[in-house]
């Protein structure tokens, strides 16, 4: 494994992930965050006003 030293990542993700269980579904917290962000960004992209201008 690489010795990180000066270029070590401030947030160490080497430890095991936490998991969320819901029925047969089991999803890691990092994956859940990614999916949550996907939905959030889509909703924001649809709802946030888009600047008008440059029209003819």
């Amino acid at each position, binding site marked *: 494994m690489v010795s990180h030293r000066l270029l070590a990542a*401030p947030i160490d993700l*080497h430890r095991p992930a936490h998991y969320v269980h819901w029925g047969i579904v089991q999803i890691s917290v*990092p994956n859940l965050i990614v999916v949550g962000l996907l939905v959030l960004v889509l909703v924001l992209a649809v709802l946030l006003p888009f600047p008008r201008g440059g029209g003819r």
Partner: protein
Amino acid sequence: MTGTPTRRRWASRRADPAAQEWAGDTREFDLVKELLVALVVVGVLCVALAGLFSSPDDRPITVARWAKAAPGDFVATAVTELDGTSRTASYGPPYNSFPGAGQELGPLPLQRWGGVRARVDTAQDFVLRPLREVPADPVLTGALSEWSSAPAAVQMEWATAYGDAVAKAPGGDPGAVAPGDYGPVPLLMTRLLGLGQTGALDGLLVSQDRFYATDYTKPLLFLADGTYLEDTARAQNLGGDQWGMMNETGSWPGQAWLWLYTFWYQVKPFSTSDNADALVWGLMAVLSLVFVCLPFIPGLRSLPRHLGVHRLIWRQHYRQVEGPKRPAES
């Protein structure tokens, strides 16, 4: 509409409003600037994520590490390779022609149709051939001769009895096996364990008399037949029944886009079927085809219109075209 059926179809397609050139209001936009801005934004995000979180790099498991950390599992696995009862030995194509082996997709024996194109003889490749490379060991040479000159039925008796004895030994320790008639098997296994622990077996399995080697089929199959590799993976929730396909080592995000592929392995009938892999592949192939051909599937292609999200996306346009809305209108 007049004309032949083909002409009528072409004419109606050309008359499709959505296919016409847009001649309404336009706005300025700069394609090149947009791409450059996107590159800068994504570049900054990427550098920030890489700087904050880095990336995983768990050390690979060598045969040497396996043999040192779990000698009982190593020996128990090696015995099954010798007697042809290991997972690889009874896998079927593409590794061998074990009778009856191979998954089927309904009536189609697809695995067998692939053929044996990466032949593996587990007894020879994983055990006997590496042991024959050991120099200046007359005791080993004698044991190898005793093995190869015995009838197949006797070989099987020795190996099976020794495998059972290792499983019953305290802690699976090959050194604590009860006395019995195992022929030369205990000596062969002890020598193989020693070879494994020095690291020589890693090289012998991958090189197979070649200098340059890029094909890791044999050492990976040998490792996967044991439980050490799998136990290490399951400890990080990477197992198939743990939605492992979506997961990554450590706390990094994994491959969320594989959610549907791994989902089927969690539910019946796939979770209990001997043909699970073939069935899931077949199902995902059909669903992928549906995904690709969505525009041509009646019903599915009309779904977006009914869902109505487009009214939010194009609300500026609809306000212009439809005029101000009365409160009662949705």
